[in-house]
Every structure is written in C-alpha cells, then in structure tokens.
C-alpha cells in the first residue's frame, strides 16, 4: 500500500508540475494576474507531494519491503539503518527521486524568498522550473519508477553497493544534486528574463544569491566526493579525471564564471548576454552530467546501469530544454544592449579574463571527456583520455587565473591604472615570491620550478586577499575608526576574501602533495619494519573482524617517528557478504601537514601481505581550501544588501505607483 501511495503522489506531483508550467507562463505573457497567482500554490503543492513520495520510498527501505524491486536491489536486512536511509539515493531510480525532490525544494525556496520581486517575473521563474520538473517526473514515472513491485517477493535484498556504504557518500550525492539542481534557479531567472525581454541589473541582483548558493553546494559536493574517493578507493588519490567527476566539475567551472559575471552585470550593466549564456550553460552542463552518468555512453566507475531507452529519453529532454533555451537566447540576445563601457585595464577586464579562462578550461575538459565518444561515433577507434591530458591542459590555464585572482579586487571598475595598482601590491608580490622560494625548503628540504611557481601563486592569492581586507579596515575613509570600517565591510567582501584565501590554500595542498608525496608498495611479513619518508612502519599482524553485513581482514601497523609511536593504523579489506565484493578501507593518520596512508593489498602467503604505504604532505589543505571557498560563497550569498535592496525596491515600486496615480494631475 505504502509504495502505491508513493507512486500516486508522484503522479499528482507531475500534474501539479504541468499546471505550474503552463498556467503561470501564459499568465505572465498575457498579464493575467489570476493565472500568475497559480504559480506559488502549484509549486508548493508539488513540493508537498514529492515529499510524500520520497517518505514512502524511505519507509519501504526502513521496513525492508523487498516486494519493491528497487528496495530489493539496493538493501538488505543486515544493512545498518543509516545506510537504509541513504540507500534511497543509492541507485538510478531513487537518486532521480532525490533530484526532483531537490528541484521542488529549490522552487519552494523561490516562492518564499521572492516576495519582493515583480509577480510576472516570479511566475515565469517558477514556470520554467516547473517545466524542468515535468521532464524529470515523466522520466522517473516512464522509465525509472522506484516503486515498481516484483513477484515472487525475494526473502532477502541484494544489498547496497558496498562502495556507497561510507559516511562520506551519505552526504556527497545530496550536496552534489543540490548544486546541480540549484543552477536551475539561475537558469530559470535567465529564461524568464529572456521571455520578458528585460535584462537589467535588477535581474542580475536577483539571480546572484541563488547562483552563489548553488555554487556553494556544488563545491561542497565535489569536495566530499574527492574526500570520499581518497578514503575509500585505497589508491591515495583525490582526483581521477573520471568522466563523472568531470561532469560535476564542468558546471562548477561555469558556475564560478557565472557568479563573477553576475557581479559585472549587477554593478556595471555589462556582460549581459554573456551572463545569460553562462546561466544557461551552467544548468545545461548539470543536465549533461546527468545524461552522461545515466546513459552509459562513457566508461566510468560511477556509471549507473545502462539502458538505451533512458538515454534516449534524457537526450530528448536535453535537446528540448537546452536547445530551446539556446534558441531563445539566439533570438533575444541581439536586442540586449550592455551599457557599461570599460577600458583595457579595469576590473571588468580582469573578470572577463577570469570568465574566458574558466570557460576554456571547461571546454578542454568537455573535449577530453567526450573525445572517446566522438572517435567511437565516427568509427575512428577506441581510445581513453587519462589524467596526463587533463593535467597538461588544465594546470597551465589555472596559473594565470590565480594570478588574476590576486590583482582583480584591487582594480577599479571602468578604468584602472595597472602600474599604480601593481605598485600598491609590490610588497605582496615580493613576499609571495619569498614564500614560494622558501616554503618548499622548510617543508621538504627540496624544491623545483613548478613548486616555486605553485606556492608563490598560492601565497600571492592568500596574501592579496588578506591585504585587501586589511586595506579596507585600516586605510579607508579617515572619518571612521578602524572598528567602524570593520563593521561596515559587507559580508560579500568577506566572502570574496575567504574564498580567494581558500583557492590559495587549495593550491598549496595540490602543489605539495603532487610534488612531494611518496609511496611504497611492499610485501610485509608480520613483525617486519619498513622505512619511508622518515617514518617507520611496523606490521603487527592481521585479524578477522565481523561487521554487520561484511567480514573483514584488519591489519594493524604501528607508525613510528624518531622511535616514538605516533599512530596505529588499521587498514581493512572488507568482503560484503551479499554482493561478495571486496572493499578497501584505508588506514589514515590525518595531520595538518601530512597524512600517513596505508592500504592493505593481497595476501601473498601465510604471513606476508601486500601493503601500500603513502606519505601525503599537505593533502588535507585541498579539502580545507575547498571548504573555505564554500564558506566564502555562503557569506556572499547571505549578504545583507540583497535583502535590504529588495526592501528598498519595494518602497521604490510603491512610490512609482503613487507617482503614476498622481501623474494625470501633475502636468
């Protein structure tokens, strides 16, 4: 009964989504206020019914209802409760339900935080989001119904994919989807503005916090995915340029370009066409990612089961949504005029360069990811594109970007003096270079040109961002005290500073770990000691451990430095009983300046085991940097002025209304 309620709720949600798409958009185009008023209740109703549906599926998981095919395929009575709840999004069908749940949640958020926006605008935004929702709900109901029953009912479920049984992975997909789906709001604003034909700085201001929030979620999602891969895959790597990783990284790059470009459109009324295109692109790439993951066109560790029918459906949907919006763009964009003029040296130019670099980076990744597919489609052979390509093209694009990050905030809008700005920053440049030259020696006792470049750039972006804050606090208008100036700095500025510091921290982590990491693959006998990177690893033996739904071989290693025990690591090789798949649980001693990482390999003979030992300097800085970026984004999105300006606009609109009524009298 419960699964049928869930199924039925999904059908109702689809009906509401259809209403939410058609009625408000027609209402807005024909200026019929009764039709426009349908938008919010329809969106809220849709959200409610999707929640009901989602709860029904979760309930089926908790109650081990194996008569539901999806539950039988992805759970087991021995599966711990927290993983039963997260198993809802553990495979294709349920993760799609999570997708639509989040889409309707974002729409619901729009209905709440858009009170001060023009009604027609909100109606169009909600309508566009409704359309996206119709597509995904239909997809779910027609090809991927999570509530499908099976008969005879199996006594036991086939269990959740063991790779997904990890706390990191419980929150990684929801965060990632929040990011993907979140770009639908900025997308809907862009389409609404194109439909309306009015693209102004107000539009950019409304879109900004939404785009930034989506970007924050995506940043967290990607970072968690990387952190999980590091912990769980046992290779010690943190980024593999896997097609599905790339699929999440491409919208991130475009999203980063978008949140910067929106700033220009808001403040200077420039880049309008460009910003709209980026908003469309960011969401299009999210959809493309969904297609790549679920259609099986690429080989990936993440790929869901292949089913051409699903692939064809999503591709058609992509063609309609993306093709339609790009066509609308082609029709409307020529009429949109950007007013703001700017000189070659200006903040606009810096942001334009930022946009170009990010987009080029996105394209190189897109080409690398799809290249095997292109060749195969042309029957030109089978190849795979690996990390060497991506590193070779991506890193050189990011170096100038980090350079611009430092100087950008110091450039004035419209026209700035490069020499004058650089003179102000001379101290920072010198300190950055000193840090870049000295730090690698302090850390590793050796260096290389690439490390010096990496660390100098990282130091530059951190120091420049902090210096920007310092200047605003201590060298501002002389009438205010430092404390007053400190309080006056908008949250968005803190956001920028924190995010740019985050980039620097991230670059430090990446540079050090790629230059100075060490690894050893050795057979070890019980009692044997191996030395690496100044640490001594002693193998104490292996014992059997029994988990709730797995059995495990757990090794114990003592890690000593200068004859002092600093950690006992317990790497495991688990065998999940139902799917009989082996899983590695690495033993990691995490530190601020280095991780010691041990993965247990194959048993060689009675006493000897293959062991992979890694020394990973500064690796945690990668995720710490990403966390700072996300925090920066959050601060920026929560800036007071979005709310204040909204209030002020309301007053402004009210006063223009008064003027209009007074108009006939005045002349």
């Amino acid at each position: 009964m419960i699964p049928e309620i869930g199924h039925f709720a999904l059908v109702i949600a689809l009906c509401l989504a259809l209403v939410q798409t058609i009625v408000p958009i027609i209402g807005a185009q024909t200026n019929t206020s009764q039709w426009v008023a349908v938008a919010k209740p329809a969106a809220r109703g849709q959200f409610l019914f999707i929640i009901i549906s989602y709860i029904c599926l979760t309930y089926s998981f908790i109650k081990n209802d194996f008569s539901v095919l999806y539950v039988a395929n992805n759970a087991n009575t021995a599966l711990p409760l927290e993983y039963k709840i997260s198993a809802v999004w553990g495979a294709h069908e349920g993760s799609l339900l999570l997708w639509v749940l989040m889409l309707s949640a974002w729409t619901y958020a729009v209905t709440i935080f858009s009170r001060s926006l023009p009604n027609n605008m909100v109606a169009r935004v909600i309508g566009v989001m409704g359309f996206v929702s119709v597509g995904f709900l239909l997809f779910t109901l027609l090809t991927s119904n999570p509530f499908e029953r099976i008969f005879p009912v199996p006594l036991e479920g086939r269990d959740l994919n063991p790779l997904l049984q990890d706390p990191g992975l419980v929150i990684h997909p929801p965060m990632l989807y929040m990011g993907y789906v979140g770009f639908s709001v900025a997308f809907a604003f862009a389409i609404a503005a194109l439909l309306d034909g009015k693209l102004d700085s107000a539009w950019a201001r409304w879109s900004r916090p939404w785009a930034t929030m989506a970007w924050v979620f995506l940043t967290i999602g990607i970072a968690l995915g990387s952190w999980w891969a590091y912990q769980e895959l046992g290779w010690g790597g943190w980024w593999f340029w896997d097609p599905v990783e790339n699929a999440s990284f491409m919208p991130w790059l475009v999203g980063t370009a978008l949140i910067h470009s929106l700033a220009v459109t808001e403040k200077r009324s420039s880049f309008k066409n460009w910003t709209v295109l980026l908003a469309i692109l960011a969401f299009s790439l999210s959809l493309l990612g969904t297609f790549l993951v679920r259609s099986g066109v690429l080989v990936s560790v993440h790929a869901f089961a292949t089913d051409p029918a699903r692939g064809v459906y999503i591709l058609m949907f992509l063609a309609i949504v993306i093709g339609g919006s790009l066509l609308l763009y082609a029709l409307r964009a020529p009429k949109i005029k950007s007013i703001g003029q700017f000189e070659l040296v200006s903040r606009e130019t810096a942001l334009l360069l930022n946009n170009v670099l990010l987009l080029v980076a996105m394209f190189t990744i897109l080409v690398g990811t799809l290249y095997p597919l292109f060749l195969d489609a042309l029957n030109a052979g089978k190849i795979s594109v690996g990390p060497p390509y991506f590193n070779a093209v991506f890193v050189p694009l990011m170096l100038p970007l980090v350079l611009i990050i430092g100087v950008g905030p110091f450039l004035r809008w419209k026209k700035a003096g490069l020499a004058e700005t650089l003179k102000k920053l001379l101290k920072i440049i010198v300190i950055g270079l000193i840090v870049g030259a000295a730090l690698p020696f302090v850390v590793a006792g050796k260096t290389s040109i690439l490390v010096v470049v990496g660390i100098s750039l990282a130091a530059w972006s951190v120091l420049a961002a902090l210096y920007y804050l310092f200047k605003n606090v201590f060298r501002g208008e002389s009438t205010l005290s430092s404390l007053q100036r400190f309080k006056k700095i908008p949250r968005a500025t803190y956001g920028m500073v924190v995010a740019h510091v985050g980039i620097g921290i991230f670059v430090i982590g990446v540079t050090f770990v790629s230059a100075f990491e060490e690894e050893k693959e050795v057979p070890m006998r019980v009692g044997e000691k191996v030395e690496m990177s100044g640490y001594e690893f002693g193998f104490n033996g292996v014992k059997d451990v029994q988990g709730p739904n797995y059995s495990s071989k757990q090794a114990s290693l003592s890690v000593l430095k200068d004859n002092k025990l600093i950690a006992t690591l317990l790497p495991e090789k688990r065998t999940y009983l139902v799917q009989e798949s082996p899983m590695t649980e690495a033993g990691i001693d995490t530190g601020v300046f280095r991780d010691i990482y041990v993965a247990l390999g194959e048993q060689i003979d009675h006493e000897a085991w293959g062991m992979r030992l890694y020394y990973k300097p500064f690796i945690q800085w990668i995720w710490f940097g990403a966390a700072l970026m996300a925090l920066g984004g959050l601060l920026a999105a929560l800036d007071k002025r979005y709310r204040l300006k909204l209030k002020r606009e309301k007053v402004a609109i009210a006063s223009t209304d008064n003027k209009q009524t007074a108009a006939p009298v005045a002349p």
Partner: protein
Amino acid sequence: MIKYLLPVVLFFVLCGFLFIGLYKDPSEVPSPLIGKPVPEFSLPKLLDNSTNFTHEDFLGKVSVLNVWATWCFACKQEHPALLALADRNVAPIYGLNYKDDSAKAKMYLRDFGNPFEANAFDEAGRVAIDWGVYGAPETFIIDQKGIIRYKHIGPISNNDLENKIIPFVQQLKNET
C-alpha cells in the same frame, strides 16, 4: 545573429554525437589478439592434472575459451549462460581457470555444473597475460585454424549468447 546561433548549433552537433554514442558500448575494447593465432602455452588440466592442455588443442574445430575463477562474482553470474551454451552443443567450451585454487575450482564445477570440455589450470596467471586478459570473465572464440576471432569482456548475458556468441560460432563453422 549568426554569432548568437553558434551555441545552439554546437549543442545540436553534440547531441548528434551523444545519440550515436547511446548505441555504442564503450566497454567493448577490441583485442589486439583478434586475427592472431592463440598464444603458445601448456598447462595442467584442472580435473586431470596428469595431462596438459595446450594451444594445439584448439586446432581443427571452432571452440570457445572462457576465462573464469571462483573468486570472480561476475563469473557466477554468467555460469548459467555457459551451461546453456554447452547444452546447445554448438562448440566445445574450454576454460582457463585463472589465479585460482584447484580444490575450490573443482568444488565449484561440482556444485554449479560443468560446461567445460576441459580446463587449463593457470594458477599463476601467466598464460592469461599472454591472452591479454584484464580480468575474469572474458570469453574468446577461436576458429578451426586456431586463430582468435572474437573476444567478449565481462559476463555473457543470455542476450549476448543468442545474438553474438552463437551466431558468430555458426558463422565460423560455415566458413569451411
């Protein structure tokens, strides 16, 4: 106008590629061994280790070689398909028991049924390297002259059996 149309044009070109991609299997990797004679080897037979199984055993008939192991979950999945293939009697199936324990392998065949005419026992996995095996299960089809003509990576589904393996074997048989 033209420059504004560029994104949508590029996008539809991309869609075209994606559409073709849907009907291609990215995990199908051509083996460089196709069209080449089977690599030379000689290994003890699994069930009768007094005699050896060698590359010469492939001569004079169309045959199928399946690489399998008891530790390989996907092999268990495809086992019914192999038994079905054996029932059809279209071609002898040989096994290459890969990096396995002979006692376990014997028990496996007793418990789940034995579709194999004979099994080469490749304990160290050296011969499998010569065959270019990435991982079990993999299946090869070999013609009368002992030349490898087809390779299937991953478990054989019933669909693969009916639409790929059996037709291909029939086709090879008709060649002479």
